[in-house]
């Protein structure tokens, strides 16, 4: 299995607090990894470091930079419409406008309403849509279904299935044990340390 993204000895400290102990993680083609653990275990920190959104205090991240990142809290401009948010990040990702139209259609988003006025579910869908702009080979999701209803949750898992099906790698953080069924590998974190790494044949 070809590794698409690899973290080597990444750590993160906030002053004296060690949020993430030196950690090695490798995401390979066709892998869907569930990051599990209680609050404060370091799941979000590890995902943000893998996505390049957070600087590691130590260690390095190597591999494919076409990484899609769905942060736990929707990350877009509330005063811009869903379309404007997508166009803005498409310009920064050097992606054409046809991709924006495709994502608006796929996620059935109200294109011309300020995103701050969207429902929580729509905001989270916009959050996911933004992560798919550059057609990433690696998708990192931080508790992506936390505020979604069952229908919307199913859509998210469809996206995960698409990336997986295209030979990409997916890593998602969850506190919901039932969602582990969508993964074929589970990494357990506690107090900023990897305490378990199990490959399962749950997916497909």
């Amino acid at each position: 299995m070809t590794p698409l993204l690899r973290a080597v000895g990444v750590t993160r400290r906030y002053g004296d607090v060690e949020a993430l102990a030196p950690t090695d993680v490798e995401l390979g083609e066709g892998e869907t990894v569930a990051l599990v653990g209680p609050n404060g275990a370091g799941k979000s920190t590890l995902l943000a470091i893998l996505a390049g959104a957070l600087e590691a205090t130590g260690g390095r991240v190597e591999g494919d930079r076409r990484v899609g990142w769905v942060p736990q809290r929707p990350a877009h401009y509330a005063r811009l419409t869903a379309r404007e948010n997508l166009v803005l990040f498409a310009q920064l990702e050097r992606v054409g406008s046809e991709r924006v139209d495709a994502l608006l259609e796929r996620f059935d988003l109200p294109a011309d309403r300020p995103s701050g006025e969207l429902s929580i579910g729509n905001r989270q869908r916009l959050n996911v849509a933004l992560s798919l702009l550059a057609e990433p080979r690696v998708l990192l999701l931080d508790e992506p279904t936390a505020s979604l209803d069952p229908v919307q949750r199913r859509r998210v898992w469809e996206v995960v299935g698409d990336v997986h099906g295209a030979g990409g790698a997916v890593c998602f953080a969850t506190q919901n044990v039932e969602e582990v069924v969508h993964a074929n590998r589970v990494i357990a974190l506690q107090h900023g340390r990897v305490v378990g790494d199990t490959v399962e044949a749950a997916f497909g």
Partner: protein
Amino acid sequence: MTNVAVLLRKDLTVLRRSPLLLVALLSYPIVIALLVGLVAGYANAKPRVAWVDEEGLPPVVAVGGHRFHIQTVIDQVSQQVTLVKLSSREAARELSNGKVVATITVPNGFLAELGTTTSSPQLVLRTTSGGLSQRVTEQVQSLVYQLNRKLQAGFIAANLREVQLLEHGGKFGSYDVLGLDEMDGTLATLPQNERVARLRQFVRIARLALAQTGNALHATANPISLAQPKHKGRTWVLSAQVQSYGIALTVTFLALLLAAGATAAERDEGTIGRLRRGLVSLGELVASKIALAAVVGVSLAAGIAVLFGIVVDVGGVQGGQPWPRLPLLLIGVALAAAVIGAAGALLGALARESRAASLLAVLIVLPVVFLGLVPRGALSAAYWVSRFLPFSHAVAWFSAALYDTSPWRTLGIETLWLLGIGAVLWLLARRAVRTLSA
């Protein structure tokens, strides 16, 4: 389109869609500029000075045979200060609690000494040691100078009456003065001989010399006099200095608040993490906030300058708005706003939250502006601190760009200052923004 331009367009769109914020951002600094202007104007108002009359000056005083109505003279000469009559005790108390900025005391024996003309009587001036003392001292010196001029006129008039008595004759106390006119007539009736001819020649020379005495006395009393013809110049409120301060204050407020708020908002909205994933470098992120400050600053300053210019032109004020200098002014505004924008980005990154960033920006901008308003002579430490902040350099830049006949040297020096301060702020802001997504 570059990443900086993409982010700048986004920030401008966000600003346009926040009309309340936009109105507050544009009007607030203008209101503050006006208030500062009013305070500065009040600072130019006449300070209260206590007038302590220990002598008990009568309403009318005769000096050198010339009668003075004291209050009229004081009213005429006290255009620079407001004189308040107080007892010496009240004056001392008000001086100590700051209700008056100085006391002028007319000591006992003042009039007697004035009448002798053998020595100069003294008025006693007491001031506090505050920043106004030098200014009040200068104004009281001016008052004493003007009083002396009035007294000189009286003395000269009295002297001239005596000279006229010598010329034309008349009563001087109990004496009947002959006068040169009558002396010449008497000499003309005498048998003419060499001695009489010499006496008549002396009388002619003496009359010619005495005829010049008035001019000579005036010229000696006032070797140089100051003529003050009326001139239709700018009023204080339309002065070049006020325009420079007004634009600098407005741009400083706006640029600092905007850049600080926009930088911190990237964290509030959670977008900083998305941007930092290799999409936008830290330098580009800081540059976009600096560009936002510069673009909005230039727009607002252009509006203020044009409005100010129209008022000056419509008012027919001499030396009106130098319209050809407007582009030069706007270059300076862009530079100053960019430097202040870098400071704003630094504040926004340090505050990490837009409300805190805005509060911090307001807390910082006021002392920065007021430091820049402190004159060098008033408090040199404040002046030197302000030299390392952008506001005073922005004021100097704008003032030179608008009104200096040859502004280039000043513009060069102030540009170097602004670039130096801007470079330091840029580096600090870039470093601070690195921690923003943490």
